[in-house]
Each structure stands twice: as structure tokens, then as C-alpha cells.
């Protein structure tokens, strides 16, 4: 399974001419530092305004904004649905549920038009908010809240805790592992977004690193000896942060996956 990634890395440490004449390389070359420096800090693209580093920052903003935004919004909503009895509760539940049915990809064109109409093209808001509109997080939290024993709430109410106090002092601390697991899943999901950023960002200074891959291919088509090394280096750079997060939090992540299965 790891083979292609290793070959991609070793090949990226050679120069383009070697790769062009000799094929992909299994043994690391001596071009590691120049290639990766070029990918990270040299200004590329058509307008020469974007560096690999800048794209990494954009990806981080997208990943963090998406994960944190989603957790806040969906925790509040799940709290309302599980712990409150109110007339429109069932309706709200079904509206939220309906978003699970349709991924952004199937309504991509009208979503683009809406975001364009709101003047949000090439903004972080426009990049992040439409992705948050799917309520997967709400359902993870709803399932989790439903498994919290009733006695906790009853005890808290006897002690005179109101809804906000119960939420902050009991529910949030209790959900810590759940929050962490969802954070990892959502961060990776946000970081790896591709189709939406392609449409949303025409201004290169808003490119994410995954989006940047498409650009590098288009430069590649025109040249005589394609920059295989730089393309592969960018791929390695693009995969490192999500991989690092997943591995670092592996235990929690598996727990989250297994729980989400229910």
C-alpha cells in the first residue's frame, strides 16, 4: 500500500532530467533540498503570486475553519435537538437530516451561483460555509448525546443547573474524545477538498495546496521536460499535514470511526 508513496518521495529528490530519461527512481537522489525549497517558496502559477507555503496556509485555514466551525455549529444544534422539547424540534431534525442526503457535489452549480450572488467568491467565508452545510457532525453528536445517561441531566437539574450550565460544565467535558475524533475526521476532509475550491478560487492567492495540484499539471502539459520532481514534491507536501494529524491521533481516530459506524 505504501509503495507508490515511497516511490513518489524518492523520485521527487531527483532532478527532472534524470526522471525524464531514467523513469521513476527507487533510490533517493541529492536534490531534496533544492526541489522542496523551490516548491515551498518559489512563486509559481500564472500570476506568480502564490507559493507552496502560501497554499499550505490557505489549506490550514480551510481545514481548521471547516473542522472548528462544523463542531461548534453541530454541537449546538445537536444539543437543542436532544435536550429540549419544543414545537419545531421534529421539523428541525428533518431539515437537518435532509442535508445528509445530498453531498455538495450534486448541487455544485446552483451552490456556485448562490455564493457568487452573495459576493463570496475568493473569500474564506465562501470557501468554508457551504462545506459546513452538510450536517454529518450534528448526527455524530446526536448519537453521542443520546447515549449519555439521563441521570446526569436529572442530577444536574436537582442541583439547579440551567441549560447553559449543563452544557458547559457537564456535556462539553464529557464529549472531549468525541470532539477530538470529529475534529480529525473533519480537518482531513476539509484539507482534502478539491472540487469546491476549484470553482471558488480563481484568485491564485486563495489556492489551497490540493487545488494547486491541478495547476501544476497544467503548467506541465506545455513544457518539454515536465517538472516531475516538483509535481511529486508538491504531492508529498500536500499529504503530510493530514497524515501527521491522523497518525498522531490514531487511537482517537479509530474510536471515532468505529463509533460513527453505529
Amino acid at each position, binding site marked *: 500500500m505504501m509503495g507508490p508513496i515511497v516511490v513518489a518521495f524518492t523520485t521527487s529528490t531527483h532532478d527532472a532530467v534524470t526522471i525524464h530519461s531514467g523513469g521513476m527512481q527507487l533510490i533517493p537522489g541529492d536534490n531534496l533540498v533544492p526541489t522542496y525549497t523551490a516548491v515551498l517558496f518559489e512563486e509559481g502559477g500564472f500570476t506568480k503570486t502564490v507559493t507552496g507555503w502560501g497554499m499550505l496556509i490557505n489549506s490550514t485555514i480551510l481545514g481548521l475553519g471547516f473542522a472548528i466551525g462544523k463542531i461548534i455549529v453541530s454541537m449546538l444544534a445537536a444539543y437543542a435537538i436532544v435536550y429540549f422539547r419544543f414545537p419545531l424540534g421534529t421539523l428541525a431534525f428533518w431539515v437537518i437530516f435532509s442535508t445528509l442526503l445530498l453531498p455538495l457535489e450534486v448541487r455544485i*452549480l446552483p451552490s456556485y451561483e448562490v455564493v457568487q450572488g452573495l459576493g463570496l467568491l475568493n473569500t474564506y467565508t465562501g470557501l468554508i460555509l457551504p462545506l459546513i*452545510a452538510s450536517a454529518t457532525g450534528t448526527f455524530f453528536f446526536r448519537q453521542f448525546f443520546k447515549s449519555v445517561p439521563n441521570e446526569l441531566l436529572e442530577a444536574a437539574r436537582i442541583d439547579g443547573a440551567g441549560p447553559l450550565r449543563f452544557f458547559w460544565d457537564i456535556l462539553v467535558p464529557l464529549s472531549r474524545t468525541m470532539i477530538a475524533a470529529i475534529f480529525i475526521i473533519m480537518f482531513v476532509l476539509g484539507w482534502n477538498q478539491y472540487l469546491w475550491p476549484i470553482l471558488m478560487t480563481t484568485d491564485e492567492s486563495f489556492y489551497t495546496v490540493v487545488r494547486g495540484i491541478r495547476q501544476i499539471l497544467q503548467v506541465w502539459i506545455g513544457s518539454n521536460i515536465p517538472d516531475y520532481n516538483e509535481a511529486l514534491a508538491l504531492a508529498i507536501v500536500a499529504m503530510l499535514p493530514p497524515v501527521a494529524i491522523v*497518525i498522531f491521533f490514531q487511537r482517537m481516530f479509530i474510536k471515532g470511526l468505529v463509533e460513527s459506524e453505529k
Partner: protein
Amino acid sequence: MYKAQFTTPIYPYLLLLPQMAIIAIFFLWPSAEAIRSSFFLSDPFFGSETFVGFENYTDAVTRSDYMRVAWFTLIFTAVVTFVSLAIALILAVAADNVLRGQGPYKTLLMWVYAIAPPVAGLIGIMLFDQHIGPIVRFVALFGWEMQVGVDYWDSAIAMMVVATWKQIPINFIFFLSGLQSIPKGVREAAAIDNPSPSSRFWTIIFPLLAPTSFFLMIINITYAFFETFGIIDVMLKGEPGNNPVTLVYKVFLDGFRGNDLGGSSAQSVILMIFVLALTIVQFRLIERRVHYV
């Protein structure tokens, strides 16, 4: 299920407000718009619209290129789902027998999970590149001149290989945790009753894994439908030409390149109905499984 609840009147609405606002603006509105414009023929140059009823639908479904894309999507989804599940199951059974799951290769598999589809596509296209691709060189030894990006089925095979590779790890992790949750007692009882390991696997272990498999099947179908967009786009270098694409890719092509808003919307709505059916199956399954546990 009984759950003690608050009856405070305003709080729940305030708590729901952010979620509802986002859903209304970025989900309900565009979805309604997709359904509406699927009934209109729009002129991209003058901005005028004519009501055409179901014409966009009949037009989309009867066009030969749509059927070709639909067939390809079906084959692509079936192959990716079946092969990645099969390989993941074989790997999971092997891993389960050897060391009951604790191992560095679990970490290694996690790597592949976390990679973005377009990144996988980029690595894939290098492996299948005319000049430098080791896979192309390898199959050339058997007399197969592979031309990804030029030949329809060569591209299709390359895309399936990359999409499958990317999906095996997640299936593996689920299968492995499914296998490890089978109680030891069950295995020992089975071992006493039935000496043949393979028949033991098919009669005892595999049925116990069936809920996991079904769940994974739906996850994989969704993956093959939607998330492979990045793989396909990168492997075709954004220039599909005469190459294989999936239905989701076609929605994108017709809407943004072809400016066929009505046709693209009609295709979106067809996809919506399909996903809707799939999700209902999935949700019913999930709800039922909650009762077991």
C-alpha cells in the same frame, strides 16, 4: 427512548440558529434552485429562460453520451467497490491471524487514508506516465502498450487501480476492527466443530462481518461516485476529451464548461434521487444496528 428534556422556550431556537441559517442559504436554496432550473432551458448569453418541463430530463437520459457515462460509472463503481472490499478483507483476515491487529502497518495504512484523492491521482498518473511510469514499462514486458489519457480503456483501468488503492485502507480498518470484535469463545467453539479453516470462515466469520460489509459497501459506492472526482480530474489532466468520466464529472463538465445549466441541473436532480434512495437504505440499516448493540 425517554430523555429528560428542558422546556425553556427560546434557547433551542438560538442554539439551532447557526446551523439552520447555513443550511437554508447553502443547502436548501441551491437545492431548490437546482430543481427549478432543471425545468428550464436557459440561454447563457442573454440570461433568458424558457419553461420546458421534463425536456431536460428526457434529453439527458436519451443522449448517447449520457448513457455511455452512466454505464462507465456503473462499471467503475462496481469494480472499485468489489475489488477494494475483497482485497481489504483478505488483508484483514491475514492481519487478524498474525498479530491481532497491533502493528506498525496499521499506521502505514492510515497514511493512504489521509491522502487527498487528487494527490493520489497525481501519484497515479506518474506511475502510469508514458515516459517515466514504471507500471507502463512493466505491462509493456507483456506486450501491452498502455496509453493513459489517449486510450479509453487504458485510462479507465488506471483510474480504477488508483481509486481502489486509495480505498483499500479504510475498508481494511473497518474489517479488522469487525474481526477483532468477534468474541474469542465463538472462534474456539467454531474451531472445535469445524476443522476446515476456510469453511469456518465462510460459515461463521463472514456472516458475522456481514453488517460491516454492507455498511462499507454503501460507503464505497458513495466514494466511487463522488470522491473520485479528484482522481479522475487529475489523471485526465483536466482535459477529459474522449476519456472515461463519471456522472458527477459530467454534471461539472456540462454546467461549467458547456454552460448547459438546465441539462446539468437535470443530471444533478437524477443524481440526487439516486443518492436519496441509497441514503434511506443506509439510514434504515444504521438505525436497526443501533438496536442490536
